[in-house]
């Protein structure tokens, strides 16, 4: 797993003595977190800090006729009750559209609803008090006069002429539509031997972070500066948006983001209640804290998926896939989310369906509609689970129809490992993927043939087990193509500054952020390896717009690939600078020296010449002893952004082995395998745990998780008892293997790994369930695969 990127001298900058690359080293932040010294916003206390709670609409769609908050205002400890109308003076509304998503429309959204609420859970007033409990007490005293309006809830009828239009000014409930047509689809279908079609239905679900969304906004009137402490994935984006809507310059806003208790894409957006909190701090001239409770998290954290996608596949008798066609529909709530928009998931579905396969015949349509439910937006593996489930579901159905083994049909259709570079019919460009190597490795890891034999043997005993395979591609390391080109001020580049301090320790400031995936660790590993210093000496600072270079943050599987490359390049420059000084001190040449284990050594014989601490001492305290003309620069900064490819695609394949109790409809997951190719692996344990965590979220989608709305737009399971997250008791062992194809666009060679697990897990499970149920003739293309769904498909109830 050691990357083998030859540099000019035959050795890569990473392939050095005592390199940390490819090694499982403990994360530097582990002790801090385990000893309870994490700095979570939920725990933050500031002098004079007030707490805000939001009175939220119980209706999915209603006109606000009157708000009577006099009683609440008079309660002891209550500082203010603020309505949308009052807050409007401090913060401007926004519209969640981007120019490159052509035709995408949305309506202006306010920090707090004015006149009308559009989903159950939308805030209609803020209660600010000296404690959260007092604020909640006061909230109960506010009387609101609502006139309930008809709610648009079913995405299938949202575009019907008889359905009310949620935002009259938009003309209809269609937020976005995209069609794509490549190759000759009609002819491919006409000339195929078999056509299979199905409708795939995906439940609406959400991210359920352990620490809910949390923000403390602190307007300092004396400095005319707002400090925002927030659990976010993108501090500079928050800075930009907050400044924009509060009428401030970015320099007047500092965003600090220390530890974050999980994010999964939930915390990469700008939420109305967070905007309201910034504005309240400015209005009230004191720190204001908002921490979502679990019920409001379910009602306001973005939801995701919730697609209905019709798919068709054309195959020849020999298994050749000749075309894919999809017609996708999704409902995103009443507003397109800001600033990344709610069209991205559907857009990704169009981009990704059929992606692993050779066929160039592909037709797609997606429609994104408004409805009176909570907002939907990007959540881990955006669009991928849908594209993968549709593609892989169709491939399995086709294989079953022509009587071909699911592994064999993939072998015959996956893009050959030597066909790169190439592009998908949707125009996605692939630098280098390894579908066949990955599949071969997976089949070997799972002992596929033996498993098939076991499956057949257990059928005789009335035990119904299934095998499901799902190949996938994954968007990582996005360039400006993702958001920047559409006009969003979301940086796709990242920067890292590295400096050597007076005792030879290294401080490293990076613009990527840490939400548990190990950004801190991988940065220290890269910097330590490139510099030749031990990791204990490297301290990584992230999450502070005042104190890190400007950059995108951590999302879309970009931290390691982009931020890691910036760290590598910065460390390389610093290394060169250090060696220049060392050569001057030692009257040698930089090329004859190296840094190994915190010391300057001779390249020739490895003999130690001078400790870094000694070098630093001379530089900082006795520069008088250096030769004239030398100005040491023991700090270096580099930025990086991918330019050659819009995305560094990764690939992989997953398999599920499970048992269906055909009497009860319960599914028992027996085992799960993943083979993944994320290029250079910096820390195998971090990568494997990212994949495992992602798989678990995918398994949650497959079997458990669903936001259940009733026909009036009420979310009926907004609590941890009724919304079923996957728990360890139900999770199988997840075995992970790797194929390593580094990207050539960077010296590091790393692509993203954070979302791959989520991309394919549900598809593998759904295929396995259908494989198990094959003797019963039941086919299910809906997730979550609940006992109710399975028993119904089996005709038992």
């Amino acid at each position: 797993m050691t990357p083998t990127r030859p540099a000019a001298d035959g050795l890569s900058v990473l392939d050095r003595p005592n390199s940390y690359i490819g090694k499982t080293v403990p994360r530097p932040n582990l002790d801090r977190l385990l000893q309870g010294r994490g700095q979570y916003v939920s725990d933050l206390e500031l002098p004079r800090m007030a707490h805000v709670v939001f009175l939220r609409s119980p209706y999915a769609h209603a006109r606000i006729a009157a708000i009577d908050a006099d009683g609440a205002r008079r309660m002891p400890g209550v500082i203010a009750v603020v309505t949308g109308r009052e807050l409007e003076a401090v913060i401007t509304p926004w519209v969640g559209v981007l120019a490159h998503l052509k035709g995408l429309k949305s309506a202006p959204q306010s920090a707090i609803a004015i006149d009308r609420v559009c989903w159950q859970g939308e805030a209609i007033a803020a209660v600010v008090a000296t404690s959260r409990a007092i604020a909640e007490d006061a909230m109960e005293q506010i009387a609101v006069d609502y006139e309930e309006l008809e709610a648009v809830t079913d995405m299938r009828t949202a575009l019907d002429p008889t359905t009310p239009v949620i935002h009259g000014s938009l003309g209809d409930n269609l937020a976005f539509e995209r069609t794509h047509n490549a190759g000759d689809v009609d002819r491919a279908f006409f000339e195929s031997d078999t056509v299979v079609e199905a409708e795939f239905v995906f439940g609406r679900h959400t991210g359920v972070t352990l620490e809910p969304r949390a923000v403390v906004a602190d307007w300092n009137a004396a400095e005319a500066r707002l400090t925002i402490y927030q659990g976010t994935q993108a501090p500079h984006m928050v800075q930009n948006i907050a400044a924009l809507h509060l009428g401030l310059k970015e320099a007047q806003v500092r965003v600090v983001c220390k530890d974050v208790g999980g994010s999964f894409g939930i915390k990469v957006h700008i939420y109305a209640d967070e905007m309201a909190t910034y504005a309240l701090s400015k209005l009230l001239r004191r720190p204001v804290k908002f921490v979502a409770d679990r019920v409001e998290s379910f009602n306001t954290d973005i939801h995701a998926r919730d697609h209905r996608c019709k798919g068709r596949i054309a195959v020849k008798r020999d298994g050749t896939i000749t075309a894919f066609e999809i017609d996708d529909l999704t409902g995103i709530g009443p507003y397109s989310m800001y600033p990344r928009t709610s069209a991205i998931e559907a857009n990704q579905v169009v981009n990704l369906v059929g992606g692993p396969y050779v066929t160039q015949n592909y037709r797609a349509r997606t429609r994104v509609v408004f409805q009176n439910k909570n907002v939907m937006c990007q959540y881990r593996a955006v669009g991928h689970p849908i594209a993968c489930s549709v593609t892989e579901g169709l491939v399995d159905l086709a294989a079953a129809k022509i009587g071909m083994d699911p592994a064999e049909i993939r072998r015959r259709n996956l893009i050959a490992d030597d066909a790169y570079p190439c592009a998908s019919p949707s125009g996605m460009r692939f630098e280098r993927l390894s579908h066949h190597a990955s599949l071969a490795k997976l089949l070997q890891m799972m002992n596929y043939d033996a498993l098939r034999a076991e499956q057949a043997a257990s059928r005789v005993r009335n035990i119904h087990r299934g095998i499901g395979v799902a190949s996938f591609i994954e968007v990582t390391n996005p360039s400006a193509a993702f958001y920047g080109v559409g006009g969003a001020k979301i940086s796709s580049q990242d920067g890292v500054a590295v400096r050597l301090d007076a005792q030879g320790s290294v401080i490293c400031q990076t613009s990527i952020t840490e939400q548990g995936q190990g950004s801190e660790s991988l940065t220290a590993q890269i910097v330590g390896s490139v510099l030749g210093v031990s990791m204990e000496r490297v301290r990584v600072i992230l999450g502070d717009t005042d104190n890190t270079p400007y950059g995108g943050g951590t999302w879309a599987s970009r931290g390691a690939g982009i931020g890691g490359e910036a760290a590598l390049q910065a460390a390389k420059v610093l290394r060169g600078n250090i060696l220049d000084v060392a050569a001057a001190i030692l009257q040698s040449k930089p090329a004859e020296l190296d840094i190994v284990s915190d010391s300057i050594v001779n390249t020739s014989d490895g003999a130690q010449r001078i400790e870094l601490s000694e070098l630093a001492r001379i530089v900082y305290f006795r520069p008088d002893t250096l030769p004239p003309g030398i100005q040491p620069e023991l700090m270096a900064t580099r930025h990086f952004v991918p330019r050659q490819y819009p995305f560094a695609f990764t690939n992989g394949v997953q398999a599920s082995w499970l048992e269906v109790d055909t009497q009860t409809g319960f599914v028992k997951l027996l085992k799960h395998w993943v083979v993944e190719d994320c290029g250079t692996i910096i820390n195998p344990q971090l990568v494997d745990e990212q994949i495992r965590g992602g798989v678990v979220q995918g398994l949650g989608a497959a079997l458990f998780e669903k936001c259940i709305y009733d026909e009036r737009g009420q979310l009926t399971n907004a609590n941890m008892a009724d919304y079923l997250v996957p728990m360890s008791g139900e999770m199988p062992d997840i075995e992970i293997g790797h194929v390593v194809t580094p990207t050539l666009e960077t010296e590091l060679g790393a692509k993203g790994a954070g979302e791959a697990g989520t991309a394919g897990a549900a598809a593998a499970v759904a295929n396995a369930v259908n494989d198990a149920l094959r003797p019963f003739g039941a086919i299910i293309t809906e997730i979550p695969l609940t006992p109710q769904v399975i028993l119904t498909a089996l005709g038992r109830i």
Partner: protein
Amino acid sequence: MKAAAFAYARATSVVNALELLAVHGDKAKVLSGGQSLMPAMNLRLLSPDVVIDICDLAELRGIVVKGNVLVIGALTRHVDLQRSADVATYAPLLRDAIVHVAHPAIRNRGTIGGSLAHADPASELPACMVTLDATIVVRGPGGERRIAATEFFKGIYETALSPDELLVAVELPIAPAGSTCFFQEFARRHGDYAIVGLAAQAVVKDGTFANLRLGFFAVGDRPLLAAVAGKLIDVFVTPASLAEAAAALVEELDPHEDQQGSPAMRRHLAKVLLLRCVAALLARPELDTGAAG
């Protein structure tokens, strides 16, 4: 999600707890393990004026055998049931059931008295009490009342307890020699409340049931001691008679609709459980034919 303000009183004795209950009546709530009460208060589904904490009352904690009866104090925690040798010996059904109640952290705090007083129809322990023919012992201003488990549960979260009474203990007849038991439930995840469950105890003689008690739960508003058991006692069970019993069982159930399952699904699963239970207790796997569908 912060509870509304409430007053807190720590009872020093059962008598003191009863005095406090007498004063505050239905404005008060007894606090045992807090595993059901506190979430309800934090969600503001319940806002008692006073919380009466009885956790210090050692007299309410413990498991003892008295003659033919196993006495379990109301404050005995789930984890204590799980670990008790007496429970394993004299009420093995309870031992089998308790590991299905929630998760270790909750079992470390939750109490049997709290579980029975809470009376969630999907709960394991109330069904076990009904199956085991337990007596629920309660104390109030007028002294002690002894209520048969079959009379104790009145509906969803409803029991025969009045607001000024305290559940102090349960008494279980110790399992007769030669008895066997069966416990199974269907839950989406380990530790979840059941979609349907069955707690059964039987005496099997010469391959037939000399006695059989079937306590179904999550099939109605309270645990159900199925009358259909009577059809299976003292007869040689055949696939046909079992199918007949399964059909009759369905008539007895009044399951509700919720997000985990429709009434039809609950009826179906109850039948599956009946077949599995009878097949297991009689050690005749062939009876579980899968014909329930």
